[in-house]
């Protein structure tokens, strides 16, 4: 047998003929087939709900990370003003990591949005086919003898069966992609849990494992140039203001985000 067309059609046809063989009575076949179609439609709806849930979760993470970026930036400024360049550097490195994460989250949210639209379109198409099948089956039951009905049913079932196989395929592909993103989302959560985006005021003077990893992750040149820019903005006139704020965030614009609450 040749390529895809042959193979897929064969699989679909085999499934349908199995289904048709199961029932001797045509009207029973029709009802069974219709029932299967409705089941699939329910599954598609569940699949769409799954994608929407994943998308919402990523959107929440995006918001959280945006708050972190603002907070880390403020903290870098505070650290620099307090004369603690090392701490400012750490803050900027973390900001860098958070920004990289944000970019990838944005594209994933867009991808999920796309998946959602495709699945919604699939659902509509399947619904139209099922509705068409439903009215066809009433006509077949009313107008044809058992032998004729069997032929008519076979035709209709092939059409709707192929659509069902195709919707199943579309759904599987969409869900596979969503699974990958879920893995990605939980990786970000792990980063958060590992303290990557936590309040810097909680960090001691020593450099820990995360710091070293972060240094490797983030672009040093980017951090360097941002640090230089920040220094220039602060100017030479800003005298050290003592230790970095106690972390209450009272002077921090956009603070009060998740991690700060977690840290306290």
């Amino acid at each position: 047998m040749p390529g895809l067309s042959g193979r897929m059609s064969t699989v679909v046809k085999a499934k349908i003929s199995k289904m048709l063989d199961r029932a001797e009575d045509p009207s029973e076949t029709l009802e069974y087939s219709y029932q299967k179609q409705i089941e699939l439609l329910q599954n598609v709806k569940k699949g769409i709900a799954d994608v929407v849930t994943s998308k919402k979760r990523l959107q929440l993470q995006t918001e959280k990370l945006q708050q972190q970026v603002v907070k880390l930036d403020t903290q870098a400024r505070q650290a620099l003003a307090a004369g603690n360049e090392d701490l400012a550097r750490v803050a900027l490195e973390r900001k860098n990591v958070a920004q990289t994460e944000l970019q990838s989250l944005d594209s994933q949210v867009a991808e999920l949005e796309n998946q959602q639209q495709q699945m919604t379109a699939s659902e509509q198409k399947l619904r139209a086919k099922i509705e068409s099948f439903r009215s066809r089956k009433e006509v077949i039951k009313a107008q044809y003898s058992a032998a004729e009905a069997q032929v008519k049913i076979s035709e209709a079932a092939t059409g709707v069966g192929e659509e069902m196989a195709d919707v199943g395929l579309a759904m599987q592909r969409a869900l596979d992609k969503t699974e990958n993103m879920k893995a990605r989302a939980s990786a970000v959560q792990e980063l958060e849990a590992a303290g990557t985006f936590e309040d810097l005021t909680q960090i001691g003077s020593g450099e820990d494992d995360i710091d070293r990893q972060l240094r490797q992750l983030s672009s040093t040149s980017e951090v360097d140039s941002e640090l230089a820019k920040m220094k220039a903005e602060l100017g030479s006139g800003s005298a050290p203001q003592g230790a970095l704020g106690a972390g209450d965030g009272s002077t921090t614009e956009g603070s009060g985000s998740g991690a700060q609450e977690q840290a306290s």
Partner: protein
Amino acid sequence: MIVRISTEGQYELSDADAEALNELDNEAVLACESGDATAFHATFDKMLELVRTHGHALDEDHLSGSDIILPPPDVSLEEARQEFQGEGLIPG
């Protein structure tokens, strides 16, 4: 001839267009066999384009099986290698 683009929908294609599709399909099979991803995607995109522009989209409530089923537009070379083998889409 009814052609389905997997995950997209069904189209009615003239015999002449189906013949053109078959020729492209042969190229796609060759690209697949030699593992040339660029050539495969270029040819496969042409196949999709041919069906979408020359084909007449069937109504959503149309109930009939397809003569040819193309893989989904986002198919990877790896997936295609498992599907596009031997004689290709149209046997004989």
